[in-house]
């Protein structure tokens, strides 16, 4: 392979700034002796320079506003899901605490297991209901903003 043949594929890489120092040296050395490759490199460099300043279309203001709104809505929906789970867990925890606090009352009522189940169930249900109410209220507040 002649120096001309081995250097020619490097010209585009040189114009693109992708050659290492050795490759760049080889190109520089060759174009001093080869007008065809010097012309080729000049053309490629001009195209490369032109590519950095092509007309740059911008997204419309409406597209940007729509995208921002959809991204914000997606983030809000995710926050809702997370806060819903957190409130649910908190509600169950509260229910559990209430049932422990009423343990004495259950004991005083004779230690009937049915009463205990009823107490536990109603406490947890009250906690979950409170969580759902809080979540809905937050969502409604956000939709009014």
């Amino acid at each position, binding site marked *: 392979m002649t120096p001309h043949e081995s250097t*020619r594929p490097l010209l585009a*890489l040189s114009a693109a700034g*992708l050659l290492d120092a050795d490759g760049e040296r080889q190109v520089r050395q060759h174009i001093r002796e080869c007008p*065809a*490759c010097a012309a080729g490199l000049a053309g490629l460099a001009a*195209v*490369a320079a032109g590519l*950095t300043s092509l007309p740059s279309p911008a997204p419309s203001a409406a597209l940007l506003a729509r995208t921002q709104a959809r*991204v914000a809505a997606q*983030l809000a929906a995710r926050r809702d899901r997370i806060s819903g789970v957190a409130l649910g867990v908190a509600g169950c925890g509260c229910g559990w605490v209430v049932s422990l606090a009423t343990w004495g009352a259950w004991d005083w009522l004779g230690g009937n297991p049915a009463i205990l189940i009823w107490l536990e169930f109603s406490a947890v249900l009250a906690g979950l209901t409170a969580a759902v109410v809080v979540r809905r209220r937050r969502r409604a507040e956000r939709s009014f903003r």
Partner: protein
Amino acid sequence: MIYEAAIGKDFPVAETDEAARLRRRDPAALAAVVDRYQHRLYRYLLRLVHEPAAADDLFQQTWLHAAGQIHRYDPRRSFDTWLFAIAHNAAMDLLRRRTGESLDDPDRGAEWAAVEPDALAAAITAQRSAILAAEMASLPAVYREALTLRFEEGMKLEEIAEVTRAPLSTVKSRVQRGLECLRQNMAARWRKEDLI
């Protein structure tokens, strides 16, 4: 070398603290990033798919995906490549569904021929941007993508490889062949216009 002199390197990147805010899904941080990357992302998508309506859809799709997957973003890596990789996947899905758009690396066409420097320089000087944009649009998608990421986004080979999930050698060859094709087309077009 010539390219390095022609392009600035001060592209905006997401700061580390901003990356942390993004990972926490801070709406203000995401809004700021959407605003900051709007031109670059839209330009990249439009170069790939040509049609503004398709680019609009992909633009939204990319940001919605980015917002949903932001917890997967590793702040030690470049936000640019992460975001552009999402856009790349969305655009490639669309191009695959389209008929007549090849995503394969084209075979090497006719060997590159030397042309007179004055002729090419004149062609490039006269309406360079418009002609180049039109010629760029006629290139195969993989070349368009490699050239726009290299020359308009100023990405390094490694970054382009990360965005396109292609080996370094493939990316290098796409930039090289894309540039040579463009130069050939520019020369041919000048000759044609000169004859009219």
